[in-house]
């Protein structure tokens, strides 16, 4: 599905732009935040932390963080939280991203 123009009221709405903070040495590598981030902002890093676990790190789409705060809630270790940076204006790119993401089936978590 494609929008042929921006929605008429897009000036009056904005997308919150969040920033993810990771306290790496608290992480125990359970992977909840990586799995359940609705926008897929996180992935497992290859480095080790002080305890020998792989903490999460931000992937390239980290700009997609909308400060929903699910990682803060689902992290059992108090090791990750989000902060609202600034609201940003809706662009055609955002509309395209959102419509493609939610219109096709999310196949990230389905095992082959």
């Amino acid at each position: 599905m494609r929008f042929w123009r921006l929605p008429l009221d897009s000036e009056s709405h904005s997308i919150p732009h969040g920033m993810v903070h990771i306290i790496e040495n608290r992480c125990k590598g359970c992977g909840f935040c990586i799995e359940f981030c609705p926008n897929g902002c996180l992935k497992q890093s290859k480095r080790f932390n002080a305890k020998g676990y792989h903490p999460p790190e931000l992937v390239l789409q980290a700009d997609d963080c909308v400060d929903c705060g699910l990682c803060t809630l689902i992290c059992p270790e108090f090791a990750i939280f989000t902060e609202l940076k600034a609201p940003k204006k809706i662009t055609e790119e955002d509309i395209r991203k959102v419509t493609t993401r939610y219109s096709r089936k999310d196949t990230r978590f389905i095992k082959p």
Partner: protein
Amino acid sequence: MKRHLRELQPFNKEAEDKHIREGHGLHPLDAYLKPGRIPHIWCPGCGLGVALTAYIEALHRKKFPVDQCSVVSGIGCTGRIAGYLDMDTYHTTHGRAIPFATGLALARPDLHITVFSGDGDLFAIGGNHMIHAARRNVNLKVICVNNFNYGMTGGQAGPTTPIDAKTSTTPMGNAEPGFNLPHLAHASGAIYVARWTTFHPRQLVHSISESFDRKGFTFIEVIAPCPIGYGRPNKLGDGLEEMRYYREMSEVRNGADPGTAEIRLRDKILVGKFVDKERPDFLENYNNLVIAKAQAGKKGRAA
């Protein structure tokens, strides 16, 4: 044989304090946690941290100052929650979290008292106290973290272990059906009964903050993964795998009959807010029936 022992260092309070303060305050919810206690002892993939975060988030959302809240917990992995929270918390004897909290609730009716304990503590050894506190409708918020076994002592079968589940004491499968906790709480007289899994942290925060508004005995069951004690013998995988299982198999049905919310191994889990009703609580009944009569009839010491 000559042994080289490490030289004993004299206790340096400043260095210890600095070590404890180090890293505290990096997270916005650290204000509710005792400095120096994080990282906690729970296993990677355990759901107890999610339940603790949800409770703290609910406090944060309701903007309760910590001196108006109190947490009582019993023995077990969940009992450690009392030690991590930076408020007036009590770590009581096994199964006796509710009697202790009842006393506290009657002596200090202005406090928001939460009983945070596990299924083994609240329903095995403390089952009797639990049903009677629900019958009296004491003003307590009970959060029961259910992981289907005794995790801390090595994964033994408990009263909530589903039938046919393997644990370290039932290696051939459990022959006893487990308790249906929301049904038990509802039948005993709780005014607010909900069940969520750790996959539903937002709903859990909402339920906990809703239960703070109710006056009476509220009961929230949190189903948490126990990857070491329960997941491994039953081939449920690690904590993440169990969370995926909750995502696939949990069915939100608010207002459902708690009698139908039984949990079986590898079967769907009914979650939601099952019961929300009103009933006069214990202190109200006591003031209206006993104190008022005693004052009117000039009987007893109250007159």
